[in-house]
């Protein structure tokens, strides 16, 4: 390997200087960010701020998955889009914003929703995934493909004045290894009944609430990457769930979570889930979750 690949260019010292001098980043951390490929699934209220701070930090490759177009009702919280870009594809709009902020990053647009059919092709190109989607159907699909492809997954969600964040499959040990981090199914083995999801889905969302969660997703991804996903030291992390509430006085709460579930459908030793089965469509995520369409209210 030629040594120039492993140093920073002069203008990179200027652009990233303020984070480079942090002991938790340093030159080694910046080089890891530069060689990382991060996939953001969902270019909405979580995906916009997450993409902004990952782009700013100098991630090497940033992929964005979304099949929707920008609507006026998005703009109070999806702060990387703009009024002039209403009706544009969200992936195009978000990449246009990020390109303006940091042209050093390689951006890849996947202008489609993630499906069981395209999930392997898309996700396999990246080292770490952010779930910025807005419905339970996607959350199970994204978790399953991340387990199958052994990618850590930074998952967040928000509704009304509440938010939740957890880093899943961290680190992504092979299935059946108890030292690997839990997957979404370990935490939520069964999907919620559709009625309970719909009734919450009509609740609305406060912009800065989902904004805080998206920025925290970028932070967790940067921490995982800068600490070295490529190093032998990368190992078991104690999983914790961050709860945020802006109702009443603003508060955060950290909850110690379980490890992998020994009988998990996806990540246990007894799991029969395969890439082929997932791709074949025999796992009907929509029916499993009982939700016919993404909850587009968000």
């Amino acid at each position: 390997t030629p040594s120039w690949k492993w140093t920073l260019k002069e203008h990179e010292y200027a652009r990233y200087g303020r984070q480079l001098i942090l002991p938790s980043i340093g030159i080694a951390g910046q080089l890891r960010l530069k060689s990382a490929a991060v996939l953001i699934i969902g270019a909405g209220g979580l995906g916009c701020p997450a993409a902004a701070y990952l782009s700013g930090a100098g991630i090497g490759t940033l992929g964005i998955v979304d099949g929707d177009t920008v609507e006026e009702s998005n703009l109070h919280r999806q702060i990387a889009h703009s009024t002039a870009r209403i009706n544009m594809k969200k992936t195009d709009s978000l990449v246009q914003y990020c390109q303006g902020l940091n042209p050093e990053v390689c951006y890849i647009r996947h202008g489609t929703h993630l499906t069981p059919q395209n999930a392997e092709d898309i996700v396999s190109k990246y080292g770490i995934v952010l779930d910025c989607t807005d419905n339970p159907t996607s959350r199970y699909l994204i978790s399953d493909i991340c387990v199958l492809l052994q990618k850590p997954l930074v998952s967040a969600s928000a509704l009304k004045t509440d938010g939740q964040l957890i880093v899943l499959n961290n680190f992504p040990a092979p299935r059946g290894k108890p030292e690997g981090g839990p997957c979404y199914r370990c935490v939520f083995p069964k999907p919620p009944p559709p009625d309970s999801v719909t009734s919450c889905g009509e609740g609305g969302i406060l912009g800065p609430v989902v904004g805080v969660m998206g920025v925290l997703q970028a932070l967790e991804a940067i921490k995982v990457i800068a600490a070295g996903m490529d190093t032998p030291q990368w190992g078991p992390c104690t999983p914790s769930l961050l709860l945020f509430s802006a109702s009443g006085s603003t508060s955060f709460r950290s909850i110690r979570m379980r490890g992998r579930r020994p009988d998990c459908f996806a990540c246990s030793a007894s799991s029969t889930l395969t890439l082929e089965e997932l791709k074949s469509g025999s796992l009907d995520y929509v029916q499993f979750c009982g939700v016919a369409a993404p909850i587009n209210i968000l």
Partner: protein
Amino acid sequence: PGVAQEVPKIELVVEFSGGLEMLFSDQRRHSLSMPATDQDGKPVTIASLIDHLCRHTMRDQRTELFVLDGHLRPGILVLINDADWELEGEEAYEVQSGDNILFVSTLHGG
């Protein structure tokens, strides 16, 4: 009236978040005092606490948003003193006086 029998009580803080507070008078934090044993004289577990909450604390008719088929509905986490209940024995955990029990509904918005 006869002499009331002294039933030992336990004091709990029960909290709801992620939308569940809607079912409980829109109140996130409830300070609860309840008998330390159930009708069969057994110590209160999470299972009997859930039953107690449905009978005495819930103000909403839609109990199916909290309990399904005799168990907590899928998509609700129980956190005992800031730890996942799976670390503590789940429904069989015997509630202690002073415990903080948090019920969180998962969110899906983004």
